[in-house]
């Protein structure tokens, strides 16, 4: 069983291999593609579970596998894989949720002609994500980070004939790239100060005491730079603009990448390099962690507000994801690392469930995505409705049975005891109410009331799509068994502490607070939206109740607080100007210079030609004329007359005789 430790690299390698093989298949081999993808995922899941069982043996389990990539001069570049509770929990979640989504996609993408390419890209993403969580080196993690970003780009723009999808893919990649710049700078700085990028290396890793000691005050800046990467990838406040647009991709993509896994990579990164953030903490607070908290809480609240005014079923869930990620960041920032990761794991399950449910709804309504055109679907799509309700309750934080409730409670608990300020705690409370509110709104619009427009011809989805929904719903409920305060097994597992069962801990003040908040949220939501979609008093049917009551506020929220437009006016227009300037420079200035040099060369050529023509050629012509003239003169001696030759001989002989006589 322990061979898995020596072969950790197999876990990402198997889905990668499946992806490569699928890419080499023809478009028509759909069944082979599905078999390969799902087999790869199942194998990855089996290995993850094996690894998980291994880690149960000891408390604080951590196994390292480092290897050298190459050496340059005296320095070597080493990479490695690590197996610890954090990594293993993520592995199991990613492979299990991924498997459910793959199965779902078989039904959802059945009519798409690029079916095989879809599974190739999904397998590629799966391999990259699995590799990311077990990476022991910041560089290796960055490599997988970028691969995951590439997979996201390919999958968001999967429907290549749609310009909106291509634009969204480009936006996603560029926005996350901005974050990755910060990540890369932080990585460089870290390597400079501590001399290693390995996390754990027998005491010398950059997250271990010897490595951290080398950092000193720069740890804060390094942590913040690395946090930039997390901000981009997890859609936190300034760089959140790509996530809602990423809904242009197929719904399984939204479920896998933009709900459960890739966006979780940012949160995972903060948890992974937590020792950097918490270096020199006074009472559990450092400046970098404070930044994380404030950005997280801003994101959580902002996204929850925007979600209330959205009309696209997937957009609501996208903003919900952004909001929940903000919540996770807050949790990490206030010191509740285990709580944040637990929420990440639970969120993976129920957000994937919600997205797949939304996919099922879209499939059932023949492609309609506007919730104002749906309604009363609980009669037509009962299984989808039940599982969606489970997901909604988990997300809203209904306690006792649903995992989301317990994890949210833990986060509230941790935030309430944050020394610097109680403001995040109050804002999170507002966020919890808003979450329940917008989810209630969505569920009422989609599943309750009378069927509108697209819902009239709705049908339940096939079993290949509803089975994963049921599996995920069960997962969302059963996960709460290890999350309750009565037996906080998962908390203890992640934090490396022993745990015991104590039912008395079930009754806690926070439990009642959260119960009250959720009920408030659901109640208010029900009261505001109970007549949504139908005529009510002076409000026409298609106008949202909130819009009718507060049109200006609603428009502000529905337009995403005009942040995209702000960016377009400032950053993007600046880039456009720079691009136009560069183009002008290139076209006229540099090109002119090059042409100038070319002209000089041409001048030289002209000069040479004329010298050649009039100087050298003329000289040669004159010389040849002279030679020809001389030849003409000399050829008169060749008269062909014998007597002339004889006469010459006679004269020569006479001259010789005279010479001889004169000499003698």
């Amino acid at each position, binding site marked *: 069983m322990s061979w898995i430790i020596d072969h950790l690299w197999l876990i990402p390698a198997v889905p990668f291999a499946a992806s490569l093989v699928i890419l080499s298949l023809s478009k028509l081999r759909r069944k082979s593609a599905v078999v390969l993808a799902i087999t790869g995922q199942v194998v990855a899941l089996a290995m993850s579970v094996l690894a998980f069982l291994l880690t149960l043996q000891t408390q604080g389990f951590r196994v390292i596998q480092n290897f050298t990539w190459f050496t340059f001069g005296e320095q070597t570049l080493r990479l490695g894989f690590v197996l610890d509770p954090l990594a293993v929990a993520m592995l199991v979640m990613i492979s299990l949720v991924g498997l459910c989504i793959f199965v779902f996609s078989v039904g959802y993408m059945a009519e798409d002609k690029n079916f095989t390419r879809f599974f190739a890209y999904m397998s590629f993403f799966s391999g990259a994500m699995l590799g990311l969580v077990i990476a022991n080196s910041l560089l290796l993690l960055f490599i997988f980070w970028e691969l995951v970003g590439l997979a996201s780009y390919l999958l968001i723009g999967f429907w290549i004939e749609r310009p909106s999808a291509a634009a969204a893919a480009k936006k996603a990649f560029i926005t996350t790239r901005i974050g990755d710049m910060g990540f890369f700078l932080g990585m460089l700085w870290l390597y400079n100060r501590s001399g290693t990028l390995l996390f754990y290396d027998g005491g010398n890793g950059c997250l271990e005491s010897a490595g951290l000691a080398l950092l000193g005050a720069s740890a804060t800046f390094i942590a913040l730079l690395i946090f930039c990467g997390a901000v981009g990838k997890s859609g936190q406040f300034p760089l959140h603009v790509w996530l809602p647009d990423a809904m242009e991709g197929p719904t399984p993509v939204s479920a896998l990448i933009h709900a459960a896994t890739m966006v979780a990579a940012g949160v995972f990164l903060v948890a992974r390099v937590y020792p950097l953030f918490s270096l020199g903490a006074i009472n559990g607070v450092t400046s970098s962690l404070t930044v994380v908290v404030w950005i997280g809480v801003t994101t959580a609240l902002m996204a929850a507000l925007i979600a209330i005014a959205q009309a696209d079923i997937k957009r609501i869930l996208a903003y919900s994801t952004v909001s929940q990620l903000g919540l996770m960041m807050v949790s990490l920032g206030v010191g509740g690392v285990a709580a944040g990761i637990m929420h990440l794991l639970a969120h993976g399950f129920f957000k994937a469930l919600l997205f797949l449910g939304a996919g099922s709804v879209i499939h059932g309504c023949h492609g309609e995505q506007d919730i104002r055109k749906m309604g009363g679907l609980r009669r037509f799509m009962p299984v989808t409705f039940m599982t969606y309700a489970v997901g909604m309750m988990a997300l809203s934080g209904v306690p006792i049975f649903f995992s989301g409730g317990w994890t949210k409670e833990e986060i509230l608990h941790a935030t309430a005891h944050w020394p610097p300020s109680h403001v995040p705690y109050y804002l999170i409370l507002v966020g919890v109410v808003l979450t329940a509110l917008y989810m209630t709104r969505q569920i009422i619009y989609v599943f309750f009331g009378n069927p509108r427009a697209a819902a009239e011809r709705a049908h339940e989805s096939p079993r290949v799509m509803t089975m994963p929904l049921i599996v995920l719903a069960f997962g969302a409920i059963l996960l709460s068994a290890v999350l309750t305060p009565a037996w906080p097994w998962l908390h203890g597992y992640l934090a490396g502490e022993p745990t015991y069962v104590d039912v008395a801990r079930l009754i806690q003040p926070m439990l009642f607070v959260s119960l009250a908040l959720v009920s408030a949220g659901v109640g208010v939501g029900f009261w505001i939206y109970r007549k949504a979609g139908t005529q009510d008093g002076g409000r026409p049917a298609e106008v949202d109740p909130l819009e009718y009551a507060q049109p200006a506020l609603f428009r502000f929220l529905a337009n995403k607080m005009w942040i995209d437009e702000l960016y377009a006016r400032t950053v993007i227009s600046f880039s456009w100007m720079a691009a136009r300037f560069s183009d002008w420079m290139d076209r006229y200035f540099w090109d002119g210079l090059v042409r100038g040099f070319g002209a000089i060369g041409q001048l030289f050529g002209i000069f040479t030609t004329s010298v050649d023509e009039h100087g050298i050629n003329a000289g040669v012509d004159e010389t040849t004329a002279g030679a020809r003239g001389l030849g003409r003169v000399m*050829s008169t001696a*060749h*008269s*062909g*007359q*014998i*007597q002339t030759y*004889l*006469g010459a001989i*006679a004269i020569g002989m006479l001259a010789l005789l005279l010479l001889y006589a004169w000499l003698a």
Partner: protein
Amino acid sequence: MTPTLQVFLIVSAALFSIGLLAALSRRHAIFILIGIEMMLTAANLNFIAFWRFSPPAQQPVGVMIAIFSIAIAAAEAAVGLAMVIAVYRHYRTTNVDQLDQLKG
């Protein structure tokens, strides 16, 4: 009264000059050949004169040379005449002024 050596040499030189003049100034090919023969004769005369007026020797050296020279002259005349005939057959003329194919 035998004439002195100088007389013979003068006669020989005169004969040679006449022969040369004939070879250089006649247009007909055969006349040129006659001129050449005369030059050869003059050379023969020279040999004999020197032999006669030198101390008596064992062998008749001058005579032998003269006889060889006459034989060679005869052979050469034959060849020359043959060439003249060949040229006449080809160019239909014996006028050496018209044989200037090697003019360059």
